[in-house]
Structures are given as structure tokens and as C-alpha cells.
């Protein structure tokens, strides 16, 4: 095993062709995911976090999405790899859990058949071995009575159960890197806690790397080693999780943090909000992309784009006037 990161994105950008011109969904992202690490990618809807994770795996439609920059997975450059080659890495190398377990599962096929498909195709297992492994997987994601669940259709399961099945499918071929795209957003709070707990346990058991994509900083707080905050297609702050919460520099990170409803806040008070909304991704702006919504904005922010600067090992941010700095 080398010391190189499991996944390495360099100057990674994705744009889409639209009627209004190119839409820049992800812009010049540089991210590494180390072996066994858990990375959180946090941002609002439209910040490019889902496109980033799908783009890294090569799951975006080739014709509509233009990728640039490099994607290095386990010392292999996948940026220009044809789909056929990419398929070799899906399932066994990289796997993904999608946000909505109802639409990601095939409604007219039994759980057992969907769960063993990867095992049969990718690992060339025979029917009996695949079934045995399928049962073991369902057991592992804490599904009671796996035998019965194998014979059920997705609509017969609750949302939490379906998400567990999705996790089992993603883990079937023992991937080394798991992307979880909003794995708990469609779930109840109680089930959300269970699923996050399960993902963390499985990661440790299997020694996987994991990338958790979410809009909720609260969800990733206890389950990641590092967090990257995305805004308008860019990484605006990245830091080890504990350091980020203790020492956030970027006003956007602070705003995201403050907008989380908290149990320890007094009731009946107005919640702090991030006013305005994301800039139009088809119109690249000059200056800081957060300038139009930032409470601390100055003329300099509107005029020139702040570079990504490193304040401490592994902690970088994109801001002219960081929190705690001299304003």
C-alpha cells in the first residue's frame, strides 16, 4: 500500500451545457481522501456537492457534463478513462449510496435480486454463494429477518430499511471508498441517528474510506475526520472536523452553523438566516462568490477573488477577512 491518497482530485471542474450557456457546477476543486479517512462535504442545494461526488466516480452523463482536471484513484488516473474502464472500479473500488432509497432501488425487482446482482456480475459468484453473502450483508446492516427481506420488494420496506438495503448493496463488493450522498436526508431523526451510527461502524470494520455529502453540519459532526465546505462550486473551507467546529474562518461556514436549529437555543426566538441565495452558476462573478450574502462584505471582496490560504496544517479557507482575523 502506498502513502498516496486513496482519491485525489486536482483542479477538478464540471460544467454543463444549458440554454443560457455553460453552467459551472464545480470549479477547481482540490481534495484528497486518505486511506481509511472519512471526509464530509457540506453545502446548500446547488453548491455542487453532489456533482462533485458523482463526477469523481465518473457517474455523470458524458455528453452533457464536461469534466476537467484530474481524478486519481489508487494511483490510477481516471479523468480520461472510458466508461468501460471506469466500470472496473465501480462496486469493488468505489461505490455510492444515493439520497432517495425509494427511487434508487428498482421497484419491480426483489431485494435479494438487486443485492446479489453486483456479486454475481462483478465477483462472478454462483447463485448460492451470492445469496449467502447477501444474507450476511443484510445481517451486517442490522436488518431483522434477512431471509424474508430478500423476498420483498422495496415498497414493502420502511424508508430506514430501504436505506439499509442501499448500504448493503453499496458494500456488497467490499469497496475501498464509499460515497454517501445525503444518506439520511430522507429519513426521520431517530432513523437518521441509527443509519449514521451504522455507517461509522461499518467503515471501521471494513477499513473503508468514506465521503459523506450533506447539507447538515450537525449530521457529519460526529462521523467525519475532515470536512470540506462547498459554496457555488468551490471548496471555501476545509479542515479537520474538530478544528473546523472550534476555529472556523469562513463567514459562510459560520452562517451554515448558525442556521442549524438547536435544542439548546431558547424557544420562540428568530433563527439566524443566510439572506439571499446562491449566485447564478451560469454567470461567473468577479470577487468572492459569497460576497452578495456575507454579513462582513467589503469592497475588496466584491472586486477580487480570495485565494485558498492555509492557516494551519490541513486547514484552508477562501476569505479576505476571516473570522477572528483583523477586519
Amino acid at each position, binding site marked *: 500500500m502506498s502513502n498516496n491518497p486513496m482519491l485525489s482530485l486536482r483542479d477538478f471542474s464540471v460544467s454543463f451545457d444549458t440554454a443560457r450557456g455553460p453552467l459551472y457546477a464545480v470549479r477547481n476543486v482540490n481534495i484528497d481522501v486518505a486511506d481509511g479517512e472519512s471526509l464530509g462535504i457540506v453545502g446548500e442545494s446547488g453548491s455542487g456537492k453532489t456533482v462533485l461526488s458523482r463526477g469523481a466516480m465518473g457517474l455523470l452523463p458524458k455528453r452533457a457534463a464536461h469534466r476537467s482536471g484530474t481524478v486519481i484513484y489508487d494511483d490510477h488516473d481516471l479523468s480520461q478513462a472510458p466508461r468501460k474502464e471506469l466500470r472496473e472500479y465501480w462496486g469493488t473500488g468505489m461505490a455510492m449510496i444515493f439520497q432517495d432509497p425509494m427511487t434508487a432501488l428498482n421497484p419491480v425487482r426483489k431485494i435479494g435480486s438487486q443485492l446479489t446482482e453486483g456479486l454475481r456480475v462483478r465477483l462472478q459468484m454462483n447463485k448460492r454463494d451470492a445469496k449467502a453473502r447477501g444474507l450476511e450483508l443484510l445481517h451486517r446492516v442490522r436488518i431483522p429477518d434477512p431471509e424474508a427481506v430478500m423476498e420483498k420488494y422495496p415498497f414493502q420496506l420502511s424508508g430506514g430499511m430501504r436505506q439499509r438495503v442501499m448500504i448493503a448493496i453499496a458494500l456488497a463488493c467490499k469497496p475501498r471508498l464509499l460515497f454517501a450522498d445525503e444518506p439520511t436526508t430522507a429519513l426521520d431523526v*431517530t432513523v437518521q441517528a441509527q443509519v449514521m451510527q451504522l455507517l461509522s461502524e461499518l467503515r471501521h470494520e471494513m477499513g473503508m474510506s468514506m465521503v459523506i455529502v450533506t*447539507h*447538515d453540519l*450537525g449530521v457529519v*459532526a*460526529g462521523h467525519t475526520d475532515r470536512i470540506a465546505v462547498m459554496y457555488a462550486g468551490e471548496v471555501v473551507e476545509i479542515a479537520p472536523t474538530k478544528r473546523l467546529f472550534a476555529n472556523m474562518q469562513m463567514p459562510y461556514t459560520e452562517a451554515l452553523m448558525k442556521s442549524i436549529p438547536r*435544542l439548546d437555543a431558547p424557544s420562540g426566538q428568530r433563527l439566524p438566516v443566510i439572506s439571499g441565495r446562491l449566485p447564478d452558476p451560469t454567470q461567473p462573478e468577479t470577487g468572492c462568490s459569497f460576497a452578495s450574502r456575507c454579513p462582513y462584505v467589503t469592497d475588496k471582496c466584491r472586486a477580487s477573488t480570495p485565494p485558498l490560504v492555509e492557516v494551519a496544517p490541513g486547514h484552508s479557507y477562501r476569505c479576505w477577512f476571516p473570522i477572528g482575523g483583523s477586519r
Partner: protein
Amino acid sequence: MAGSGKAHLRKSDDVILRVEDLTMEFPAGGKNFVRAVSGISFDIERGETLAIVGESGCGKSTLGKAILQLPKPTSGSVNFQGQELTTLNKDALRDIRPAMQMIFQDPVSSLDPRLSVGKIVDEPLAIWNRGDEVWRSNKVDELLNAVGLDPALVRDRRSYEFSGGQCQRISIARSLALEPLLLICDEPVSALDVSVQAQILNLLQDMKERYGLTLIFISHDLAVVKAVSTRIMVMYLGKVCEISSPDELYSNPRHHYTHALVSSVPIPDPNVAARRTTLEGEPPSPMDPPSGCRFRTRCPAATDLCAQEEPQLHEVSTGHYVACHWPRS
């Protein structure tokens, strides 16, 4: 959990809605019935925001709709402003509907994609023949302004051109068109981003003050309801567990289910998050609920008594009611 009982009902003249022993059953093939709501009683005073909290499948949405007689509940009483809704005929019920409005969880699919935003907000006014066209047009502008949308920019656009948060604003404008007294919000922010959630919650508070609304706020997220509610009712499998003011409920949850819900809320602090207790398993089927207290199969404090006898709501401190044989201290 569970309980039945009416100890928590108030005698005040300010009660705008009183629900007693409300039960809602749906046929589930053969002789089976799903009892989505079984014997729930509660009341709301004018100007209050009552939050109804519970997991998926606990019957909270069904309860919200049953209040509006959508459809009529199987049994029980719904008294709105002194009028019994369950026995009203169709026409009388229709006359009372403008006073009770609802907004739904998925703001995008609850708006007609073929209608312009102006038409969507105008529709209730047109149906009820309120004012003439000029008056209605002004009213639509006023409503859109009130929810933070610029009428000149949005009136002629369609709902699919807007984000989820903006669609929820449009839904709110529409629900306020007929100047309702009671607004039932069914998971109004759970489909939205954290940052947009806060905007919509603040907007609902503003609208409540501006239009003198009474709100029922249905949600699975205790942290969200904390910000907006004046009273919280926790439900489990069609029954009431606990009713209290928000601050009391969070600092001193007496029901074991409420405690589990409170500790499931993600805390944005990496040092705290690892130490939380989570609720194991899933709720039992409402077709075949456990005997006695319905929460006993997942409750850490369950005893034989819990299987035999259903706990009744009783007052543990002023305004704080719990249905549990062994409440937490």
C-alpha cells in the same frame, strides 16, 4: 406510551379547536384495520402554535388531515370554534373550510405546474368569489409581498422555475389568501436545506403575528419545532405520549420516547456527537399494536405492568402531561 385520557384538556374560552377521542382507521384487507390515530384528545388556544411530533407512521399527518375532515375521522369529535365538524353536512363543512388551511411537506408537488404563481395564489379567492378582479389582483400582490416575493418578478412565472424554499413561500401565500384562523403545516420544512429551513420558520412566525393565526405544526424534528411552538405534543403509533411547553419538554423529558427523540437530534459539535443514545429498532405495525403501552417494545424501562395496562395522561408538573407508568425523573 400511549395514552388516552383527557386530563390535559383546558376549559378556557380561548380554545379555538378541541379534539376528543379522535380515531382514524383505514381498511387494510380482510378484517384488518390500520388504526393510524387511536383515541387522541387535545385542544389549542387562539394564537398558540401546537407542534405535533413523532416518527414516520405515528399518525401525525393523518391526525392533521382528520381535523380538516380529509377524510372524516372514524370516530371522535372535532370542535372548531364551538362547531362540531364531524356531524356537519357537505355544504356546511365547505363554508367553514376557508377558516382552516393546510400547507404540505413537498412544496414543489403541491403547486400546479401549469398555473402561473399569480393564478395559484388567486385561485382560492376566485373560487370563493372574493372581491372583483382589481381587488383580487391587489390582494395577490399583498400576499406575495408578505411572504417575501416580489410580485412583479414572480406573478407570471411557473412554480417549476423556483427553488424549494420559494415554492414553500408560494404555498404559504396561497394558504393565507382566505385569511384562515387555523393553519395546519405538515412538515413544512423537512424537504428544505438547513439554511432555507430557518427562513421559512421565521416567515411562519411573521405570518402568525401579522394575520393572527393559530398554528398546528407537524414535524419529526424536535429541534425545528423548538423554535416555533408554544406547546408540543409527542405522538407514538397513534397515541399521545407527552404534552408540554417546549422548554420544559427539552430540559425535562419525562416520557422515555421523548427522551430518545431529544437525544436523536444531531448536535453540531464533534465532541458531543459520539456520546448519544439512539433508539433501537423500528415502530411496530399499527395493524397489530402492542398491548398496554405501545412504546413498551422499545422502551428501556418497560415492565409487566406496561404490557397489561395502558398508561393514561397525567399531570407531572404544571402544564406538563405524560402517559407513562414509569416516567423518567
